[in-house]
Each structure stands twice: as C-alpha cells, then as structure tokens.
C-alpha cells in the first residue's frame, strides 16, 4: 500500500491541470466529473491505505515514499517525500473525505455559475496543496503546501471578483496570513541554521539533544512557528481575515475556512510538538492565545446577523479550543476536536449554503425563519450539526471532543482553573449563539419565500456529514463511562499522552458543569429569541448594551485598531510619497539640464558673424591666459 501514497495528492493535481488547461473546452458534466471525481478517487485511495495502515501497522509507525530530490545545494537536499503516520492519516482522511463530499455538493451548488471549471480547478488545487502540506516529510515541502493553500484561499474568496468587496476580502485574507507566513519562514531559517536540515523526523530527533528543556532558541523557534499557525488558523491577533473570508461561495467556506486550511496551524503545532514541549513558555502562550480567541470570537458570534459570519466566528472560537488543548499538552484531544469540528462545521456551512441558496441569496438570519417544516432534510442535518457545535451532551460528537478539552484544561499538568473557566464560559456562549441561530433560521414565522428545493446531490453529502457529526464521537469515550480510546491510541504512536496533575479523578463533576453550561446557553437563547423576544427590545433601550453589542459585532474593534495602527499610517506615507520623494533628485538633474540647453540654444543663432565673434573672443581669452601665466 506504501507505493499508492503518491496517488493521493497526484489525483487532485491531475484534476487541477486538466481543468485549468482545458476547462473551457469541456462540457459542464465533464468538469463536474473531473473536479469531484479526482478528489473522490483520492478519498478511496486514502481509505485503502488507511485500512492497511490500521490492520497491519507499519513497523516504524509510518509509510514514506520518496519521489525525487527537489534540489541539492551545499548539503541542503530537501526531497519530495510523502510521509504518512497516524497524525497525517487523520488529516489526509478528513481532507479527502470531507473534500470529496463538498466537491459533490458543489456540483449542484455551483451549477448555475459561469466559471464552473475555474471553481473546480481552484478547489482541486487547494486539495492538492493541503495534502502536500500534511504529507510533507520536510518543512520546505510543508511550506510549499502552506503557501499553496493560501493562494487557493485567495483565489476562492475572491471567486466572484466582479464585486470589489470580495476582492478586498481576498486581499485582506492574503495579506494578514502573510504576516504569519513571514514569521514562519524565519522560523524555518532558524531551524535550518540550528539543525542543518529541514526534514521533520530529523529535526524532531535532534531537538531534545541540541536544546535543553526551556532553551531560549526552542522558545524563539516555537514562537515563530506559532506565529505562522496563528495567521493561518485565524487566532488572536491575526483573526480578522476569517469573517471577511465568507465572501467566497459556501462550499469554499466549508472546505477551506472551516474544515481544513484554517486547521493547518493546529497541524503544524502538533507536528512540531517536541519543539513546543521543550519550551513551556511557548506552550503556555499557545494555550492563552487559544483561550482568549475562543472567548472573544464567541461573543462576536453572538451578535452577528449574517448566518455565515456566525459560523465564521464560531470556527475561530472552535480552533481556539484546539489551540487551548495543544497548549495544555492534550495533543490528541486537539486533533480529535479538529476531526469532529471538520465534520460538523462542514455540515453547518453546507447546510447554511443550501438555506441561503433556497432563500434567494439571503444571508440575514432575521429575514429567515419558519424553515423547520419547509426544508426538513436541511433542518434535521442543521440541527445535528448545531447540536455537535453546542456540544449537546451524550448524543453529539462535539460533546465528546469538547469535554475532553475542558477536562484537560483543568486537569492536565500545565492546565489551570482560569483556562478551564474561560473554556467553560466559551462552551456556554457557543450553546447560546448556536441555539440563537437555530431559532432564528428554523422557528418563528417565515419572512422570505423559499425558491427551489435543494437536490439529491446537495442533501446526500449533508446526510453523510450529519451521520459523522453524531457518531464519530463514539470512537473516543471519556474514561468514567465507556473508556474507549481508539482514536487516542492511534495518535499516541506520534503524539505524547497528556500528563495529568496528581489526584485528578473526578471528571464527572466537570461533565456535569459542562452539561449545565450547554443547557444554560440554549435556555438563554430560548428565552430571548423564542419565548420572550420583547426582552431583547428592552435591552436595546440601554445605551451600554447597545455599545457593547456594536463592539462585539465589529469583532472587538480589531479591524478599527489595525486601521488606526497600521493601515492608515501606511496609506498616509503612501500619499506623501505619491510623487516619489526619492526621484526628486534625479528630476532636478533633468530640470537643470533642460534649462541649460534652452539657454545655450540661443547661441545657435545661425548668424555667421556671431560664430566668428565667439571664435575670436575664445582665442583672445586663451591667448591672454597664456600670456598672463
């Protein structure tokens, strides 16, 4: 099965090449077949490889396939090597499997778009880059995939480029993630400088030898890598691009800005976990960033009226949970939450896309309502996705993954009560905004007439994703009931186990608190948006509440802050320099030359006697100089 590995990224890449080169000549059916087919085939190959990986685990814990040597410069010879271990298997599975479902959904969703082939070409290129990112054996190849997904994200956010706002959102996403990417590139330089190699297994093996626990270089490297992850994963302080990234089509939001690309930062930190373990400070910063982000994004999600922006903020918030888990050393919990989150968030985005499509491109939740009976399939799948997002106890997959993170935030060695409390508060807010979204969209009276119903191609992926959003959690059960650890057993081949504080065995109390926070959040939304909506009107009377609402609505004013701190000064300087200050010197030289030329051209009078006068005067001057000296 080892030698099949190259097919996994090659198939989407072939799809991209065909669609990019010949997409205009192909009929829509063929474009759909190639676009969705290549990713589906890739998913099947992953299933085959995955089954063989699980049934007969390779001796050294990984499959690796070297395709060719990329370059060879003075001892630096990165190879194009694909490397599959338990961690990348989870990511590859999620990328290809959810990617295939989203591609199938897009066949119907994008059916009326005039740039059908461009859409699928970009999507295939994205899947290829993302696979390269997680399968890369060295950091340089990983960086290639990393930049590739950034490019595709840019192309797809600005997919409907006729609207200048979409182009603006695309540029914003590209430039803000670039800040993190630059830091990450510097991190790679540092790693190469220290280890003389970029191959991930070598770096991870040499790091504990070269650096002692808490070494300064380890902290610097970890923080630089973290900056890259923060940019890509839309965490504080580089989170502002993700809500605007919702300008792209809904399948793009589902695949790139919820399920896969934005979790690249989580993958990077998990992959380089040894470096982070060497630096407790950097790991603490990861946890704090995660906690702060999940808190801030949760409150922002509570105030949005655009359904996709609610989901965007909830994505930021959920990735915050993953960072929190990484930060407290619960590596497997973070990856588990990544997988579950990918299922339910892709489901929510696709279902939201279907709702938006059916309601004639209406994004405003306050203009939806009453869809419960009109769109039963969407309603039930959306309900399941929401239950998972809100971590509805026992029946939803999200409960099992989030409960783990909450537990480790308290009980792990580097966890502390404050992190746990913020995470718990985050869970409460998550439940509240999820319930608010459900109530506004599906209950109440219908405010917009529905158009055509979504077809089979759109509903079947929803149902499959809903199935996983419900049942994927059962592969990993808390140890006080069930105690099933299939998923973490698999990942412990790669990632270390979380170390618990001494005397921690009362997980039940925390689960009860998590129950209460979820139901409390749902109850809050139920009171305010269903039972007694007049309370909201009453709240709106108060100036303080309105200000707080606007503050949260604008994402805690980060956009404004960056405008004042960075954008405006740059624009100001650019305006000053509009006429090129540096060029002034050279413009001065030409100016003087032109003036002199104009002046001297008067002597070219065409009058012979003036020329002779000039000659004579010149001769006299030279002679007199000669005589005088």
């Amino acid at each position, binding site marked *: 099965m080892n030698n099949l590995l190259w097919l996994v990224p090659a198939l989407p890449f072939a799809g991209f090449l065909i669609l990019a080169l010949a997409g205009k000549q192909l009929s829509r059916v063929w474009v759909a077949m190639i676009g969705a087919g290549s990713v589906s085939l890739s998913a099947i190959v992953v299933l085959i490889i995955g089954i063989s990986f699980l049934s007969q685990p390779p001796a050294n814990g990984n499959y690796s396939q070297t395709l060719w040597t990329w370059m060879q410069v003075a001892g630096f010879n990165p190879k194009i090597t694909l490397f599959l271990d338990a961690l990348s298997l989870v990511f590859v599975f999620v990328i290809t499997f959810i990617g295939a479902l989203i591609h199938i959904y897009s066949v119907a969703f994008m059916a009326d778009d005039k740039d059908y082939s461009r859409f699928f070409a970009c999507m295939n290129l994205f899947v290829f880059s993302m696979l390269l990112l997680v399968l890369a054996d060295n950091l340089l190849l990983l960086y290639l995939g990393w930049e590739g997904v950034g490019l595709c994200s840019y192309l797809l956010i600005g997919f409907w480029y006729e609207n200048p706002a979409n182009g603006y959102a695309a540029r914003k996403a590209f430039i803000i993630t670039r800040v993190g990417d630059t830091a990450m590139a510097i991190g790679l330089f540092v790693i190469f400088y220290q280890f003389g190699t970029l191959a991930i297994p070598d770096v991870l093996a040499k790091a504990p030898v070269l650096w002692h626990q808490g070494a300064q270089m380890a902290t610097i490297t970890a923080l630089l890598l973290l900056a890259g992850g923060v940019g890509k994963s839309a965490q504080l302080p580089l989170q502002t691009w993700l809500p605007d990234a919702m300008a792209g089509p809904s399948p793009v939001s589902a695949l790139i800005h919820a399920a896969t690309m934005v979790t690249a930062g989580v993958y990077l930190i998990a992959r380089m976990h040894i470096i982070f373990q060497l630096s407790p400070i950097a790991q603490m910063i990861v946890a704090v960033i995660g906690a702060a982000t999940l808190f801030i994004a949760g409150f922002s999600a509570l105030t949005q009226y655009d359904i996709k922006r609610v989901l965007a903020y909830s994505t930021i918030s959920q990735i915050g949970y993953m960072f929190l888990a990484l930060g407290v050393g619960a590596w497997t919990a973070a990856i588990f939450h990544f997988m579950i989150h990918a299922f339910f968030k892709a489901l929510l985005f696709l279902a939201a896309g279907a709702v938006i499509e059916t309601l004639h491109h209406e994004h405003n939740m306050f203009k939806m309502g009453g869809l419960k009976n009109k769109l039963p399939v969407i309603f039930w799948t959306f309900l399941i996705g929401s239950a998972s997002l809100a971590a509805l106890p026992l029946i939803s997959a999200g409960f099992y993954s989030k409960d783990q993170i909450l537990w480790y935030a308290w009980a792990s060695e580097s966890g502390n009560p404050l992190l746990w409390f913020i995470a718990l508060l985050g869970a409460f807010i998550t439940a509240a905004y999820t319930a608010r979204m459900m109530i506004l969209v599906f209950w109440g009276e219908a405010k917009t007439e529905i158009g055509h119903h979504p077809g089979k191609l759109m509903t079947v992926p929803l149902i499959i994703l809903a199935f996983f959003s419900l049942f994927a959690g059962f592969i990993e059960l808390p140890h006080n009931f069930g105690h099933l650890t299939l998923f973490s057993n698999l990942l412990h081949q790669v990632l270390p186990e979380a170390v618990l504080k001494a005397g921690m065995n009362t997980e039940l109390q925390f689960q009860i608190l998590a129950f209460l926070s979820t139901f409390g959040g749902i109850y809050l939304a139920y009171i305010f948006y269903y039972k007694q909506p007049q309370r909201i009107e009453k709240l709106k009377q108060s100036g303080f509440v309105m200000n707080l609402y606007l503050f949260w609505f604008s994402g805690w004013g980060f956009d404004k802050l960056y405008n004042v701190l960075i954008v405006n000064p740059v624009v100001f300087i650019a305006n000053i320099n509009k006429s090129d200050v540096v060029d002034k010197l050279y413009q001065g030289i030409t100016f003087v030359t032109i003036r002199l030329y104009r002046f001297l051209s008067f002597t070219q*009078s*065409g009058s012979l006697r003036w020329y*002779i006068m000039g000659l004579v005067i010149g001769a006299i001057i030279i002679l007199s100089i000669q005589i005088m000296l």
Partner: protein
Amino acid sequence: MKSSISIEMVMLLAGLLFVLGIAGVIIRKNIIFMLLSVEVMLNASGLAFVAAGSRWAQPDGQVMFIFILAMAAAEVSIGLALILQIYHQHKSLDIDKLKEMKG
C-alpha cells in the same frame, strides 16, 4: 644680403593684416568679400611663416607657405562653388539673410 627690416616689424604687419582680415569677415555682409577677407588672413599667416623661416634660416617656413597656398587654392575653389550655389538658391549674397541654421 642682410635684411634691414626687423622680425618684429614683419610680425606686426602680419598681425595687422590678420586683424584686418578678421574685421572684414565679421563686418562685411557680402559673402564674396568675406571670402576675400579670409584670403587676407591666410596671407597674413603665410607672411608670418616666411618671416619666421628667414629669421631662423630654416626651410620650414617656406614649406608651410606652399601648404597655405595650396590650401587657399582649394578653399577658394570650394568657397566659390558654394557661393554660386547659395546665389542660385537664395538669389542673394547677403550673409544676414542666410540664417537657416538657427538653433
């Protein structure tokens, strides 16, 4: 035969002739007269060469004078041809009317 005229006097005469020639070139309007004035200047320099040659008893001065004569002949023939052409084109020999080359 011993010369009774000093070299200074001859040089003064040559200089005088040269200045007269230049003055003629500058102030005359008619091109033919300008050409004549140029001939005067050439002869002034020729005189200076001959006088200098006899002063130091060298043949170079006379050699230079023969060069100048040959050059003057060539110059006059080309100059006259140009003047003919100018007259054909402009129907005038007034130098002040020929300012086509004005920068």
